């Protein structure tokens, strides 16, 4: 099975004096794996190491048997959507994706065809021929996702891929991750919000201060978390209508409307049921703008797992 895993053995990376990650060992099987940790905990460092954008000071890395020091082979099977919000602004989304595909050795027409497909999969077909400079944050997020999936890689590495996506696109994106995982691929993503990813992940790796805080035990922790109500902040144009619809759900224990009547604080016993309910409400309109878990539960989890404040 080794040849099909992403393996890190005792990997450390320092930026001068600053610790990036320290002595990380991981065996990541195919499926959806989430790296979860607060900002500065080393998620991006780990992903950059896997993709060969930086190199470890010690330890070794194999991505399905390939060393990240061999980009010629590694990047054929790997797609990486970085956190860096800087697609070349003078290009259109289509030009950006297709020019990178051309570097894979595809012909012009094949590159164009694959670029169109990738942009369609992330829902950017309409904006494909507009300059990236004019894209919204969420669109730039998606164009980077398109760049990562365009060559149909076996290993997808996605740094905070759900950040800045509206609920509908987020649901579609998660659906895509599930599809990739079902095909036996690696989907490795990161988030600083546990609730955002824990339901969709086959495996969650908690990282703090450059070290793996927990892995594998997460399921039991998750069960425990399930018994406590989780809180979400929802912002919607027709917040009061959404509130009444949500309140009909039996997993929702409390709904509070904010003063500007555009925000909702929702307490639910089941995050899974909640996100499904919200997704179906979103499909019917009501102008849902954002959903964010209220972070205190993550903090509580960190305290529980790490025995201290997340730094």
């Amino acid at each position, binding site marked *: 099975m080794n040849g099909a895993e992403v393996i890190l053995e005792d990997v450390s990376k320092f*930026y001068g004096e600053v610790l990036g990650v320290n002595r990380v060992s991981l065996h990541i099987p195919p499926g959806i794996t989430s790296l979860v940790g607060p900002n500065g905990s080393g998620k991006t460092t780990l992903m950059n190491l896997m993709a060969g954008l*930086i190199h470890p000071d010690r330890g070794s890395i194999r991505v399905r048997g390939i060393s990240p020091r061999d980009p*010629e082979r*590694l990047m054929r099977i790997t797609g990486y959507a970085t956190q*860096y*919000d800087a*697609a070349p602004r003078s290009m259109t989304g289509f030009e950006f994706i297709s020019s990178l595909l051309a*570097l*894979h050795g595809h012909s012009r027409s094949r590159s164009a065809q694959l670029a169109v497909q990738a942009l369609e999969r992330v829902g950017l077909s309409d904006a494909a021929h507009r300059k990236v400079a004019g894209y919204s944050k969420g669109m730039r997020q998606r164009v980077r996702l398109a760049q990562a999936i365009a060559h149909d890689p076996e290993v997808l590495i996605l740094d905070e891929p759900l950040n800045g996506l509206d609920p509908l696109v987020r649901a579609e994106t998660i659906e895509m991750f599930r599809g990739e995982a079902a095909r036996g691929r690696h989907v490795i993503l990161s988030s600083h919000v546990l609730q955002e990813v824990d339901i969709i992940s086959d495996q969650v790796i908690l990282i703090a201060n450059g070290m793996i805080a927990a892995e594998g035990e997460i399921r039991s922790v998750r069960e425990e978390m399930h018994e406590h109500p989780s809180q979400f902040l929802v912002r919607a144009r027709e917040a009061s209508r959404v509130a009444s619809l949500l309140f009909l759900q039996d997993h929702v224990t409390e709904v509070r409307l904010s003063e500007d009547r555009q925000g909702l604080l929702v307490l639910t016993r089941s995050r899974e049921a909640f996100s499904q309910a919200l997704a179906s409400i979103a499909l019917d309109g009501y102008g849902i703008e954002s959903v964010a878990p209220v972070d205190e539960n993550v903090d509580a989890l960190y305290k529980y797992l790490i025995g201290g404040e997340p730094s």
Partner: protein
Amino acid sequence: MTPLRLRQALTLAWLEARRAFLSRRSFWVYLLALFPAFVFFMHGISVKIQRDRLSSRGVISAALMDSVRESETEAAVIARLGKPVNDFAFDRRAKQDRALVRRVNYFDGSRILVLTFANGVLESKRVRTLVNLEEDRAVFAMVFQNFYLRLAVFFGCLGIFVNLFRGKMMDKTLHFWLLAPMRREVLLGGKYLAGLLAASLIFGLGALLSFRLMLWEKPPAELALFWQQHGPAHAFAYTAAAVLACVGYGSVFLATGLLLRNPIIPAAVLLLWEGANPFLPSMLQKLSVIYYVQALCPVAPPPDPNMPAIMQFLFSPANPPSRLLAVTGLLLVTALVLWLAARAVRKIEINYSTD
């Protein structure tokens, strides 16, 4: 190199070169490349204006112009040659001598005859050409070596080539290239080709254009002869020198952008190194770009007569190598620098946050 790698390098070169040509940052590179052309263009314009002004006042035949003899009288000359294009008179007082001096000019289309009469008798006769091909070629040689090669191409390549890695790190787009399934050396090669394509087109054409404009408004006969003899070879040599300067400086600045965080200081050091080239021991002279490129220039510029004595003493340009050796030497220096760059590019890391 497998065909795929070659194709990757060429694809990358094309993508990057397009950006180098069109980027707003390249604007001043074009300015540098076109500056000599602009100077010679303005020179041509001024010659043209002068000629038109003289012609409008009357042109005489060359034979007539040459017919003026010493000791002819003012009245006879004016009667024979007609109304001069310029004409002025003044009183000259020197010791006891007092004379009424009249100075007149005639123009035969390319030469200006300057006649000075004192008290009605021809005193002196000079002929000067409106334009002087030899002189302008020497000026061109000087501008080309001292400005074009040492400054324009130098700073143009600095702008273009440092930007290929350093600039992409700054605007946080370098990682997209690193995410392509390419060997890092192929990436380096593609980027170098891109820079070379942009720089040699801009500076090669700039050299050719300024050479052409230097020859503009020159007497047709002299020009025809020049084109029959040296013209094409010189045009080629200047263009080749500009392109080879791009080859050399390009590799140096590509490596600089890869190896060093801040390119300003190494650029200043290099500028000094290249500028001080003729003062260096001859071994070290060979470790530069200008030493080889200079040897390809067809006309040696006159040495600076204002150079202080101490510098003249130190000034010891090594014997210029032959053309073939110059090209080989330059390519060797370039290969050495690119080899260093290839070692560096294998270790390259994305490091955006600390910039």
